[in-house]
């Protein structure tokens, strides 16, 4: 199959899965923004000044793309029990990669207004410059990729599970990967346990972004190690998913 067809199909599937919701249910955007903004609100209420708001905004941005990533695969499994778009697409001249990438991209597309909103505040506060923006975008993309592949891996291994189980799982994952580790707060607060943040994709990326913005001192070596861990984690999830997933059942 031609690469151009694979790319085009990816974009069409992402569009199918995002644009109609975006256009006809715009409140969805507010819900997505609030999920990430609520912890920020409490941080502002109960913390005392400093860079808390910037730490929180970094957390909100990482949270937005991570939720988008982890939910895409799990939500797709749940949705598809009813709308069966995947069954229809399997029987079409569409590459499986187009489908997987398309449904992973869709929630990211829906997250863009939220990211712009948080980014605008950071820019207003002077933490998001052109230089940090160039470093921020790949960091957000890699955490989205890591969390998307993790979502796909989970949905592949649990594809027979009930809707309730899948919904509960996505909530638990959100808490486990976004609200507990140092995503909204600096890993420096963990003291000697700060290394934990490196092995969790969300806190790893939050740490990277903090270092790009001068909020966390990291050596070049540490940055390289963090990127390597993120890439390896993503690859590991892809391998585990591809070992189990089947475009065509047997």
């Amino acid at each position, binding site marked *: *199959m031609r690469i151009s*067809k694979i790319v*085009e*199909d990816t974009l*069409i*599937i992402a*569009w*199918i899965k995002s644009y*109609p*919701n975006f*256009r*006809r*249910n715009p409140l969805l955007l507010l819900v997505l923004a609030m999920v990430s903004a609520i912890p920020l609100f409490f941080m502002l209420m109960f913390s005392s000044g400093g860079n808390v708001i910037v730490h929180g905004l970094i957390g909100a941005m990482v949270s937005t793309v991570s939720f988008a990533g982890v939910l895409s695969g799990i939500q797709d499994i749940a949705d598809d029990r*009813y*709308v*069966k*778009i995947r*069954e*229809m*697409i*399997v*029987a*079409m*001249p*569409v590459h499986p990669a187009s489908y997987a990438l398309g449904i992973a991209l869709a929630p990211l597309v829906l997250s863009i207004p939220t990211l712009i909103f948080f980014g605008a505040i950071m820019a207003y506060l002077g933490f998001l410059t052109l230089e940090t923006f160039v470093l921020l975008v790949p960091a957000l993309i890699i955490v989205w990729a890591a969390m998307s592949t993790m979502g796909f891996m989970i949905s592949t291994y649990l594809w027979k599970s009930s809707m309730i189980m899948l919904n509960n799982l996505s909530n638990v994952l959100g808490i486990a990967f976004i609200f507990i580790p140092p995503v909204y707060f600096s890993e420096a607060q963990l003291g000697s346990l700060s290394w934990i943040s490196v092995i969790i994709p969300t806190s790893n990326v939050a740490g990277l972004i903090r270092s790009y913005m001068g909020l966390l001192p990291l050596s070049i070596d540490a940055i390289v190690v963090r990127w390597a861990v993120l890439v390896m984690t993503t690859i590991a999830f892809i391998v585990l998913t591809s070992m189990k997933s089947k475009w*065509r*059942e*047997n």
Partner: protein
Amino acid sequence: MEADAVKSVDLRKVYHGKEMVEALKGVSIDVNKGELFTLLGPNGAGKTTFLRIISTQLLPSGGDAMVLGHSVVREAEEVREHIAVVPQDVATYNNFTPWEYAYYFARLRGMASSEAKHKAEQALRAVDLCGLRNRTCQTLSGGEKRRAIIASVLSSDADVLMLDEPTSGLDAVARRGVWSALRELVRSGKTILLTTHMMEEAEMVSDRLAIVNKGTVVACGRPDEIKGLVKERFRVVISGDFKQLSSFAEVAKLGDRSIVYLKTQDEAIDLLKATLKMNLRAETSPVTLEDVFVKLVGGLNNHENQ
């Protein structure tokens, strides 16, 4: 009609779960180009399994099938160029419009935007949804939603359309709307492979049909040919307690009603007269596909067994 659009040879499928289930036990079927062929069978007969194999969603355990000359096992990509599928019990995206269903599925076929728009228009016309093209699916009736999904396969311009129980859960009026759309498609040269467990649907829309039961084909042919597989041509439905039932060979008891199957119209009229003399209500008609189906799949309650 010419050559085979779909040809399955000894198609087998075994599901290995907690217990082994043999869903298809060597199904061989030929579907001609340009005909509407129906797989008719009770729930669990293997219809959906057959359709999922033919549509390249599921691999068979044995045998093979060809769609327009391409093997579903070895040449799935080529098969997918020529088919479009509507799965069983499919729901619509509530925020989608019929036009979006038709347009985006055409785009996924590789059509340019202008061509996809043209095909989407044609598809919506074929299913009589032009007036509702921009309404979201959540505001449509069950029949309109189903036709919106059918529009998505029509716009693909695929040669072979496969629909798994497309009218299940629809009321009589909505069902007829779908049937009408399907027959229009056949008239325009499409081949349609349909599954259903509704006898009226099979009889009304099919050019030919196969009765499938427990993973095997019990009978195959035109509806009138299938009906010709039993000796009895007429039936008399009697309401009430008719004492002479035991003198008839083929009787089905449905509570306080009995259906007596007879070979000739004269026999049916004689029985009708006899029942009327006894002040019982009775009516006669030719045997239906349902009568034949029940007999072929072994569901007839013969009075001797009661």
